């Protein structure tokens, strides 16, 4: 038997008797709180809502500096879009902000329609509104579920995903896909809503407000949630505006800026709805504004369903939209249009356009420059998550690291949109 190693000797000498003097010298609190610690969070971190990497400088438990590092899901979407004809770009841009796919498609289609000067029929506009508002609810539900998960409330996740499934069933009914539906076309929507869709949607809009009430009851009276959200990381509207922040974050600070009201597009002017605003601009206001938006979206859907006009669901302009399937068998002209659209795509007159819409996270703008060919010369997206993330370090500086997680959850960044 060889000699016992130094480690084993020490291990065997351990007794359970109390020590005369403490093993670790008591920490001088004054001194230790001065020391800075740089902590790397992510890119693989469950609370960062994607592959965001944060370099956090801590002083004790207080956050002193945050540097977000992005680019971990850079997909080259804008560059890919330059290589595809206009109608083939839609599925590519849809995959940017992957919780707001209808909005991505709407921003791009709206920009191209402005360049083409195509009139979108009213029925198509109403159908777009219905789907976008459903998408907004769905996005807020995923945000609510995952954010509550970050705060430790696991049951919210199941409730929110239950309603999300109901919305995705509707999307599947109208377009055949759950996510990235490619339902919006340049000039309208690809298909009319199927039979039974309105009944199912009515059922959903009837039940959704009561469900949102339940979420409110669960969280608004929850001491832990209130402690973690109330008064943490507030930022005033002026500072937010200086960063270019839009959407629920800005509205939580009291500025009622909403593009649906400020610059109505897609017949949003027809609907009667309110814009929820906060007062303080803390995390609780950000939460409350989004929860209130769910009710408003339901109201818009109800009105759109009530006043859904009859008529075509896509523009009659054969140079832009595919002819109906049955015409291909009888009309030579339709066949030629179909062939041209599928092989080359439509040509767009030269010009530049910026088309902003209100996505669940703020102003989502699409800039398209056309050189007259059938492929865009440049597609750029102003993604709200990217811009909103810049205000993050200002929000969380000086707060505790636990509040940083809560603030990031209430910021609701989507990394697919940030990195593109």
């Amino acid at each position, binding site marked *: 038997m060889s000699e016992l190693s130094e480690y084993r000797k020490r291990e065997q000498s351990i007794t359970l008797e109390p020590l005369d003097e403490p093993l670790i010298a008591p920490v001088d609190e004054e001194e230790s709180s001065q020391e800075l610690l740089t902590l790397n969070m992510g890119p693989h971190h469950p609370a960062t809502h*994607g*592959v965001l990497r944060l370099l956090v400088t801590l002083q004790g438990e207080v956050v002193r500096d945050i540097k977000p590092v992005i680019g*971990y*899901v850079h997909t*080259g979407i804008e560059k890919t879009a330059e290589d595809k004809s206009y109608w083939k770009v839609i599925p590519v841009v849809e995959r940017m902000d992957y919780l707001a796919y209808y909005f991505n498609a709407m921003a791009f289609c709206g920009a191209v329609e402005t360049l083409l000067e195509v009139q979108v029929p009213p029925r198509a506009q109403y159908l777009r509104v219905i789907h976008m508002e459903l998408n907004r609810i769905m996005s807020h539900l995923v945000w609510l579920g995952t954010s509550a998960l970050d705060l430790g409330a696991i049951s919210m996740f*199941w409730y929110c*995903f239950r309603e*999300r499934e109901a919305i995705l069933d509707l999307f599947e009914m109208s377009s055949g896909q*759950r996510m990235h539906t490619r339902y919006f076309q340049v000039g309208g929507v690809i298909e009319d809503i199927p039979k039974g869709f309105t009944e199912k949607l009515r059922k959903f809009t009837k039940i959704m407000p009561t469900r949102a009430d339940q979420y409110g009851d669960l969280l608004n009276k929850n001491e832990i949630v209130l402690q973690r959200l109330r008064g943490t990381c507030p930022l005033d509207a002026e500072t937010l505006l200086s960063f270019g922040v839009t959407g629920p974050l800005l509205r939580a600070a009291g500025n009622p800026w909403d593009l649906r009201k400020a610059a109505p597009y897609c017949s949003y002017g027809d609907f009667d709805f309110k814009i929820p605003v906060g007062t303080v601009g803390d995390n609780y206001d950000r939460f409350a504004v989004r929860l209130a938006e769910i009710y408003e979206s339901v109201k818009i859907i109800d009105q759109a369903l009530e006043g859904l006009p009859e008529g075509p669901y896509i523009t009659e302009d054969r140079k832009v939209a595919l002819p109906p399937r049955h015409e291909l068998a009888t009309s030579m002209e339709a066949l030629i249009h179909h062939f041209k659209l599928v092989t080359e795509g439509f040509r767009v007159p030269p010009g530049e356009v910026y088309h902003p819409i209100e996505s669940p996270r703020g102003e989502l703008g699409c800039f398209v420059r056309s050189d007259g060919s059938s492929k865009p010369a440049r597609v750029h997206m102003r993604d709200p998550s990217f811009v909103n993330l810049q205000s993050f370090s200002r929000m969380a500086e000086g707060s505790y690291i636990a509040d940083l997680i809560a603030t990031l959850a209430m910021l609701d960044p989507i990394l697919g949109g940030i990195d593109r």
Partner: protein
Amino acid sequence: MEIKREPIDPAGGGPHIDGDALRVRRLNSRQLLRGAEVEGPNAAAHLEGTDFERYVEERVLTTTLEKATAWARSNSFFPATFGLACCAIEMMSIVAARVDVARFGFEAFRASPRQADLLILSGRVSIKMAPVVRRIYDQMLEPKWAISMGACCSSMGVFNNYALVPSDKFMPIDVHVPGCPPRPEALMHGVLKLRKMVQDDPEMGWRERYEAIGTEEVLPGA
């Protein structure tokens, strides 16, 4: 092995006994099989003859340790909580109420790769992210498996451009799930395929599965 489920027949060999006594005898037989002490007033009574043989046949199963561990492993994967892009949302919904992956024992998502044995690559892997993904996979303890979910990380999908890299280029993948993004049901199907694979395939390390013995990283000087 075929197991016949027939009621124990009083005429089949043993003496005729009524219901209550039969229950006592069965319970006592069970204690005998377990090697436990038989207690009670009727301690001596247990099933006899062909009844007893059939009773044993129905309750004892022989297997190999390998098969038993494979069965246990394949029914309790611990996936890593790791989402990349769109598919991550659909990956989250397999935990939710509709598909409920907990039915098959996969619901325990682990935030640390050291505690996980299944990596679901859910989304697009950019060139910047690939080393991170590989590091996470390397940190997982053997035996470990990987599912490539969706078109992007299997074949770069609709993008197919400079920024992305298919996951097969930098790590071994066991199951590819097609779709953009795949439905939760499709991912579920992939997970069940993996379960079948683990049950049938005794090779637990990925080096054995992919004939990669000898590719271990050797520290200089070791």
